[in-house]
């Protein structure tokens, strides 16, 4: 029997009086995913994560962690799950070690022995006896990671873990997340750092105005979001009209480093033949995928986001929009 997925949300809704913060969100985080959860401020990411951790009650819908509902089953549903929503919070009048001892005790006590190890991992050992009230924001972020690791999680939920870290801290955080993922920990990462998500995540969900506008593999999103190519030829001036005349080739233009255009893969073969027939030699023809940042803005800004016309989505889906249209 296959194990239940780390996160499975269905029709999740959170309404605050007149404000619809989360609007029928479905999420599917698979075991081993490093899953990016993206969206502009106020899109409903943090509210969704709070519901996932059982901190707030959904107005409608369900969320399950490894098949268990944190609303109905409470702490039992959080077994194997750790992380933090927004900035990690600690008791400022206790030292880092005392904070971890408290959290370890609330995890049943077995984690206590791992406190030195996790403090070492986040490089807080020298400051372990200092009160958290005197910690910088970055140190508290690292302590948040230490507190999460104390539980030996199978699913790590991190909300903006790199916020407030200096460049070296951000690099270390990325390295840590990569390392955890390599060890088989599923990571659900909410982040505004799009390059970080692009570097770390294999699957993403993009939310906008409380709804999922894309969920699926990041590679699919990038591939389908814009099959762009860059061409260096023996004669760009002669190549450009060939590009423009070629069926299936769009947005052909001269750029700083040669020509650029968009086309489906099948049309590129015909193009290379046409260029050869026109006496233009190909020096380099390289595919250029759209960056996550490009796609993010295309999905979440302007009318395209609302209508769902921003980019074609194949394996991924605008799950909620489609579901509700059918409903």
């Amino acid at each position, binding site marked *: 029997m296959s194990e239940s997925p780390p996160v499975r949300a269905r029709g999740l809704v959170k309404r605050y009086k007149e404000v619809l913060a989360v609007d029928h969100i479905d999420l599917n985080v698979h075991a081993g995913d490093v899953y990016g959860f993206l969206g502009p401020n106020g899109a409903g990411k943090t509210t969704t994560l709070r519901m996932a951790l059982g901190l707030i009650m959904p107005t409608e819908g369900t969320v399950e962690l490894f098949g268990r509902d944190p609303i109905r089953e409470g702490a039992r549903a959080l*077994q194997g799950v750790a992380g933090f929503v*927004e900035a990690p919070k*600690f008791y400022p009048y206790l030292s880092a070690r005392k904070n971890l001892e408290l*959290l370890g005790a*609330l995890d049943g006590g077995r984690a206590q022995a791992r406190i030195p190890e996790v403090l070492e991992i986040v490089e807080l050992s020298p400051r372990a006896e200092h009160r958290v009230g005197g910690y910088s924001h970055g140190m508290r972020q690292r302590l948040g990671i230490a507190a999460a*690791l104390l539980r030996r999680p199978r699913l790590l939920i991190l909300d903006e873990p790199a916020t407030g870290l200096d460049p070296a801290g951000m690099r270390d955080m990325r390295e840590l997340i990569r390392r955890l993922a390599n060890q088989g920990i599923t990571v659900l990462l909410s982040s505004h750092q799009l390059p970080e998500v692009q570097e770390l995540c294999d699957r993403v969900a993009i939310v906008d105005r409380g709804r999922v506008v894309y969920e699926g593999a990041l590679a699919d999103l990038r591939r389908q979001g814009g099959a762009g190519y860059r061409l260096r030829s023996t004669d760009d001036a002669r190549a450009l009209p060939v590009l423009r005349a070629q069926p299936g080739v769009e947005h052909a233009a001269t750029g700083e480093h040669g020509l650029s255009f968009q086309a489906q893969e099948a049309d590129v073969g015909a193009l290379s033949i046409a260029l050869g027939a026109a006496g233009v030699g190909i020096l380099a023809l390289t595919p250029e995928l759209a960056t996550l940042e490009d796609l993010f803005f295309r999905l979440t800004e302007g009318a395209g986001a609302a209508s769902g016309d921003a980019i074609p989505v194949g394996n991924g889906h605008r799950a909620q929009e489609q579901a509700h249209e059918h409903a």
Partner: protein
Amino acid sequence: MSTLEASPTLAPTGVVHVRRPSTLTAYRWELRKLVSQKRTYLGLGLAAILPIIFVITQNLRNVHGRDQGNIFISHITQSGLATPVLILLFLSVFMLPLIAALVAGDIVAAEDGSGTLKTILTRSVDRGQVFAAKTLAAMTYGAIAVFLSAIVATVAGVASWGFNHVITFSGSVVSAPEGLLLVFAANAVYLIPLLSVVCIGVLLSTATRNSAAAVVGTVGFTILLFIVSGIPGLESVKPYLLTEQYENWHGLLRTPTDWAPIGHSAWVCALYAVPALFAAYLVFLRRDVAGG
């Protein structure tokens, strides 16, 4: 985080079954948190300093057992054991409820506001356990404040006026050891209404999510009951007001012991405490934790 490479055991090697902590563990940590906070000592300091101020003042006044309307005041210099009784009499009306409210009103709201409530609610402890631990800790604090003032008053009184027999409200004489027992029994009985105040404080702390509002609300509620008790025409409700139960311990200092006010106080206080605690529990279980 450079030591990461040297740490091969971050991930669980199999299915990890986390042992759920006991409520006692959560309660112990609630007490440790209280002990670590400076503001905890504000209330305890008041509970300890007021008896000392009282004893110093009486020594300076050089009171010589004049009849002052209360049998314990008139016997204050004859036995140090009269002092804790008088202190209980003075502090029970306002100061001890205020001290209890300082922590009860703060214990949930402060953590909600600072965001640490979400930190502990994402561990292996259930909401009900957290609530029970916090309520017990607030009650413990109230009890410590009461007995601290009693101990300080007893020590200061005995040091000033000796460990002698005392006279009860009925005028009978009890030996010093028996008097000591009665003093602490009276303080224990006073805990009945005080713990009801704590329950109301916990309810307001949970419902308002605002420490100041909860503390002021708790104290304000007791003041309101005092006002109600003084309104002509409302004499019939007076026996059922929480504030009227603050004197329930007087029955212990009569001969023979009058248990009726203590029994009455127990069920009247339960009428305040149980619904307040139950409502607080329901609010805590179902509340959205989004603070901090």
